[in-house]
Structure formats: C-alpha cells, structure tokens
C-alpha cells in the first residue's frame, strides 16, 4: 500500500531549505555532474515538488532520488542543517511502497545480507579467491558480472547509506564484557582486517565475536524498512549480555548507534534498543578510550580517508588520526571527509559517476605522497583499493586495524 505520509515527511524534512545554494559547493555528486537535480537543493525541491503536486512521481523523479550518496556533506554544511539524506530515504521508501517492493537487485541484496549462511558463503568464496591470488581483481569485478553467483555476494558490499544525523559518543564504561560486531563487508570482503580487529580487541580485554546478522542499513536505504527492523531486533537480542559492542565498520557503527531512534514508538523494544545503541562503539573510539598504543612507530606515511558514516555519522575524526600518528607519520589529504563514491550500492549503480568522484579522491591521496591510505569502513576500502590500483602502486589502501 502506498504510504502517503512518507512524502509529507520528506517535505517536512526539506522544508527548512530556503534554496540558498550552500550545498552546491560541497556535494561530491554536483562536483562531477553540475545539474540542479543532482544537488541537494534540487533534491529537496524534488521532494517538495512531489509532495505538493508540482512534479509527476515517475521514473525520472525516482532515479533522481536514488542518485544520492547519502553522504550528508550537504546537511553538515547547510545553514539550516536540512537533512536531505533523510528526506531522500523517505522518498525512496515511498517509491518502493508505491511500486509494491524494491527493484529486483535490491531484493537480492537484501536477501543475501539477511541470511547468515549467504554472508558466510560469501566469505568462503572470497577467501578462496584470496588464496588463489585473485584478490586484486576483486574491486574491478564488483561493478559487473551478475550472471556469476559471486556477484550476489559482492552486491553485499553495498555498505549502504542513511546516516540519520550524528550519533552521540557511547558513554558505556570500560571493563565490562566486550563483543565484536562483524559487519557483512568485513566478513565477506576483508576477513584479514576483521581478524586484526579481533586481535586488537583481545589484546585489551577478552572479546568475543558473535554470530550477528547484517546491521540492516542496506535495507533501510533501499526501501526495505521492515527487514531492517527485523534484523535490528535480532542483533539487539544477540548482544544483550554484552557491555560494549565494538565494530570496525563505520556504516554498521552509524546504523547501530541510530537503532534506538527507530524504536522510539515501540513500547516492547524501545528500552532494549536504546540500551543497545548506547553501548556501540567504533573500533577507533574504543581503542582511544582504552588507551591503546601501537607497539612502535613505523617508518610509514599514512593519510586518512574519513568515512561519511564515521565523521558525519558519528562525529569521529580525531580518534583514527591519533592512532595513526602513534603508529607512523600522518599526512592530511585535501577533502579527507568527502565521500569516496562508494556509498553502498552507488558505485555499482552508477560506476561512471563513482569513478569520477574516486578520481578526485585519488588525486587528493596522491598529493600527500602517503604510502598508505587508511580508512575504517569496508565500503570505502573497496573504493580506495580501486584508487590504489589506478594510481599504479603509488599507495596502498588498508583498514585501520591492519596498520596500528
């Protein structure tokens, strides 16, 4: 059934936009395609136009609201803090509901990520490819070949979207039971980095991995809100006996910290969700709070790419830098917090545009002369690995757990 309220909600979210144009200068998409409908201002106008009957809710409008990184650079810079990303999520859900469900590829994606078995199979097959030395082909393969079953797993790197404002830092006291939340991207794509994370955690206090399910962000971003809630409930229950939940995926972290907000009107789950969100920490947030120090400073130059979901989603900028400066030499790149173009499934849906955004990122990385670009999100790491290849070996891309 079509939920009329979603457009109204989107319109209300966009209502603070007075069309000034501040967002035009910060939108990574507008930088590579300078059409009004691409900008946040244009998207807010589309949301309002749809709600007020000035625009036909056809495929063109749907494509325009899908063409958003949900990176929140606009909202962060907006004088009125208009949450364009949240408005876009509403309009997307509206279109999904109106069409009777998400498009086939998102259904596939949602299905894969909902299933523990599929996610694990993903890591097995990727593990095999690693052993066969095929890893370097992976990023290039991500955007193509849907006929091969692997593509189903690869779609999972969706890593997703929907930041939903900046989550507060966790105030959970240290010293309790620490549990690792392993996101699908880390599990399937970067198991080595995931092992490093667990080793780092275990070096501080006993830490356990759980058989968690997907954080649900891909589902939320693509009009599968119901599945998102199901997954959330499963994860909340799974971590109820933990005192601290650490994740090394910025997207998962952002989503998990925001779970509480989605259950505010749910008398059964409200308190459990709030308790869960309050104990979620990003790996770097936890390590800095625990006073972690690298074993020694290496003769390596790092530069850090801020994942959207870490910098704007969780307000975490200083912690990864502190850890990197401790482990080597940190050099800042220009526009370090500008989206890499990964943005969930965006890099698969719009490979050309994502490529243009990544070119800019690559040039910024190259200009630092750093040997390694470090990040804290598997979604970004996929893109940065591509950038590293394109740079012809000028730099490597690694997860922060692998270098500190």
């Amino acid at each position, binding site marked *: 059934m079509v939920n009329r309220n979603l457009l109204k909600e989107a319109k209300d979210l966009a209502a603070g936009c007075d069309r000034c*144009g501040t967002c035009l200068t910060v939108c990574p998409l507008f930088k590579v395609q300078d059409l*009004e*409908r691409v900008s946040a201002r244009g998207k807010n106008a*589309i949301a309002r*136009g749809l709600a007020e009957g000035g625009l036909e809710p056809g495929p*063109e*409008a749907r494509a325009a609201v899908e063409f958003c990184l949900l990176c929140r650079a606009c909202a962060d810079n907006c004088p*009125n803090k208009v949450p364009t990303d949240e408005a876009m999520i509403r309009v997307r859900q509206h279109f999904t509901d109106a069409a009777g469900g998400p498009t086939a590829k998102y259904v596939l994606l949602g299905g894969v990520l909902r299933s523990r078995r599929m996610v694990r199979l993903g890591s097995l097959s990727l593990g095999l490819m690693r052993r066969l030395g095929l890893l370097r082909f992976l990023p290039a393969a991500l955007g193509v070949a849907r006929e091969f079953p692997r593509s189903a797993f690869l779609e999972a790197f969706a890593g997703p979207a929907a930041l939903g404002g900046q989550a507060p830092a966790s105030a959970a006291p240290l010293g309790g039971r620490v549990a690792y939340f392993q996101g699908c991207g880390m599990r399937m794509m970067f198991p080595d980095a995931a092992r490093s994370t667990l080793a780092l955690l275990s070096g501080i206090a006993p830490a356990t991995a759980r058989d968690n399910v997907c954080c649900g962000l891909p589902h939320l971003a693509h009009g599968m809100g119901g599945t998102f809630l199901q997954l959330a409930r499963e994860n909340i229950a799974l971590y109820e006996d933990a005192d601290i939940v650490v994740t090394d995926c910025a997207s998962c972290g952002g989503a998990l910290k925001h779970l509480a907000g989605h259950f505010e009107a749910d008398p059964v789950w409200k308190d459990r969700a709030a308790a869960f969100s309050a104990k979620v920490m990003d790996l770097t947030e936890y390590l800095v709070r625990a006073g972690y120090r690298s074993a020694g400073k290496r003769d390596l130059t790092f530069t850090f790419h801020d994942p959207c979901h870490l910098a704007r989603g969780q307000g975490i900028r200083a912690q990864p830098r502190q850890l990197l400066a401790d482990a080597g030499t940190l050099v800042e790149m220009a526009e370090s917090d500008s989206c890499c173009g990964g943005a969930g499934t965006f890099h698969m849906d719009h490979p050309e545009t994502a490529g243009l955004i990544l070119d800019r990122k690559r040039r910024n990385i190259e200009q630092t002369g750093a040997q390694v670009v470090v990040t804290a999100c598997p979604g970004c790491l996929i893109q940065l690995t591509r950038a590293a290849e394109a740079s012809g070996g000028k730099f490597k891309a690694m997860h922060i757990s692998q270098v500190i």
Partner: protein
Amino acid sequence: MEAALTSILDDLRRAVGAGHVLDSGLDRFGYSYDSSFLPLVPARLPDLVVRPRTAGEVSAVMALAHAHGIPVTPRGAASGRTGGSVPQAGGIVLALDRMTSILEIDESNMMVTVEPGVRTMDLYEACAARGLFYPPDPASWKFCTIGGNIAENAGGMRAVKYGVTHDYVMGLQVVLADGTLLETGGKAIKNVTGYDLTSLFTGSEGTLGVITRILLRLIPMPKARGVIRILFRSMDDGCATVQRMLQEDIVPSVAEIMDEISLKAVATRRSMDLPAGSACCVLIEVDGEDAASLESQSRRIEAVAAACGSLDFRVAQSQAEADELWAVRRGLSSAVAALAPNRLGEDISVPRGAFPEVVRRIRAIAEKYALAIPVFGHAGDGNLHPSVLCDLGDPEQAGRVHQAVDEIFLAALAVGGTLSGEHGIGLTKRPYLEQALGAAGVRALRAVKSGLDPKGILNPGKIW
C-alpha cells in the same frame, strides 16, 4: 512546448551540444526557482534549459531566440532573492554556470577578467593568491556567481568601506538580445567616451543583455584583519555605536547589525550562549597594515561602544574564533528563514542616519499587524533586511503580511530610502517600483529597455 521552440530545438542543440539542452520535466522543474520566497509550486517552468560554454554559443542562442521571439532568462547559481533568474514567461533558461574560466589576472593594472559562471569565492581566492583583493562579498559569495553579482549589482558586508559590485566593474562583454556582441569599458581608469554602458548593464537584472565576460578592478589585499562582536541591550545602542564610529573616522570593513529575534534564531541553531539581556549584536571587521593598527582601531571602537552602553565586547583571538563569529552572520538569513513556514525577506536601503528611525518604524509595523519581523543588515551602509515571518497558507495572515510589507516599503521611502539595496527588484518587488521611482523614472527605464530589446525577449516580466 511552443511550436517556435520545437522548430529551433535542433539548432540549439547544434549551437551548444545536445547534452547541454535539457527538456525533461525534472530538469525544467530544477531551473524554475531561485532563492526567493516565490512558491515552488505551481512552478514557473521554462520550456528548455540551455547551458552554453562560450560567448559565441550565447550569441547563437540569442540570435535564434530573437528570430523566433522566444523569452530568455539568464541564470547563474539561482541564489538570488527576488526571482531574477526565475523564467516567469517560460521559454529558455540560459544557464551560464559552465562559463567558469578566470581568463586573466593582470597584476600590473590590478584587474581580473572572468567569465560569468565563476563563483565569487573562487574569484576572490584566485586574486588573493596574488595579493589582490576583490572586496564585494554578498552573503552568498561561496556559491553565487560573479555574473549574477553584476546583473544584480550585488552588495555585501564590506560595502561600508569598499563599496558594492558596481564600484569594481571596469568593462563588460555583453550579448545583446539579437545576438550581437558588445564590448563596454576597458582598462583605462578614466573613460568618458560615450554613455557609461558598463554601469547601465551592471544591475540590469538580465533584462538588457547577457553578460559573457567581466573586467573587474582590484585593490591590494589588506595585510591584517580582525573581527569584533559587540552585544547591546537595544538596537538603538548598536546603531548609535556604528554611527559614532564613522563620525570619528573609524571605518570598519564590515559593520553588521542584528536584532534580538535574529540573534536568538542563529544562537539556537549554533548552540551559542549569550549574556542575559542581549537584544542586539554588532559584528565588526577591521583591516589594516598590521596587528598594531587593528589593536588601536579595536580600542577606539571599544571606547565608543562602551559610551553607547555595550553589554559585551569580544575580539576574536584566533582564526577559528574569527570564523565562528563570521559564521553567525553568514548563517543568519537561513536561520531566520527557518523560524516560520514562509519568510518574506526584504532589502530596503536608507540613508545611514535614518537606520535607527526605520528600525523603530518596522517595530511599530510588526506590532500593528501582530507579526514577527526580525531585522538584520548592514548598519554601516544603511541597507537592512527585515524578514516578515508568516504562514502564507493561512489566508487571514496573508492579508496582514502584505499590508505589513507595503508599509515597510513606505517607511523606507518616507525616510529617504529605497526598495532594494542589493537584491534587485526581480518579480517580488515589482509592484512597488513606480512608488519608488515615479512615473517618469519608470518611463525612462522602459525607454532604455525597448531601445536595447525591442522584442522584449530578455527576462520578461521583471523590474516593472
């Protein structure tokens, strides 16, 4: 689409490249609005959006439009506040935002030549990198285009010391309504050869020609800058301070004032704490040779402010603090707009000495019509922005709002001021033009318009 347009569609595509002619419903909607309070829906849709890259392409588009009598509305970043780039009569939106080259920075003559789509901030920074200063800084300078600044004769905060856009325009290349290329002015400082066409096109709101190249003069970049925030218990105290500073020959590069409602709106947005009783904020920028010059100016300003009853005096001690104080002013307009469903932002300009008087009159109008009308503006030059906050969806309110706006304009005219200081007339202030200029004034404007654009295809429906 009109038959005339359909017939030239292929020619337009050949002229600018097929990818730069947009005709989808979504794109037409995207180029139907600007940053004014005109409602988004029903949209004033253009039939086509054309995005030329060169003056030659602009000329080709104009020649086609002229031959077929098709309206053309030039557009930069659509950050204008009066509907200037809104395609009121449909036809073509001529988006100039691909024309983004800085063509020359002539350091010996201290002049810069740019295309109209260059963002004002990019222009500023390119000049600053050579130690040169382009002073006009409309609040939208980070995203507005220089072409739009010329078309609207944009002002900004530094007008008190450095003047407005017009004071820097030395010459223009303009494509006339029929596609003819016209060059005006030049690098010679003294130039009285014929009418001052450069001035005529500056502030012409896209109704006389399409500006395709701009020659601007620059000045040396001041070596040091400082930012000061002063809080007062009343607007009268704030106005008096600025007045006395200027009389004592302390000329700040910026002197911005905001009233209590504005101040609270932005303080809430930015989670700022203010001393109790703060009902007026004056933000001052001083520039000079060195730190000592700033220090002496700020001491003198502190003394003047204290004599006028200041509540709090804060000099930014770091760049970060200066940026923070600036952000308050830059975010003000949008923060005020967010206070109500609709905001009718005005732009009246009065003789500097009449500033306190017009603020008092606006207060009285706000009370009379039971409306919130926050006021902020450029105290140093007499240009102020009363914002009538309202919900135009409520018919009872709408009547009161329009009466209040009428009276604000009358108040400005009554104290010897005018309708618009820096936003232009566009669509939103059209009904008041004759009151401000008189019948003879409007006839003179019309005569100029019909001389340069006899078919009336350039930005029709604007100014009068």
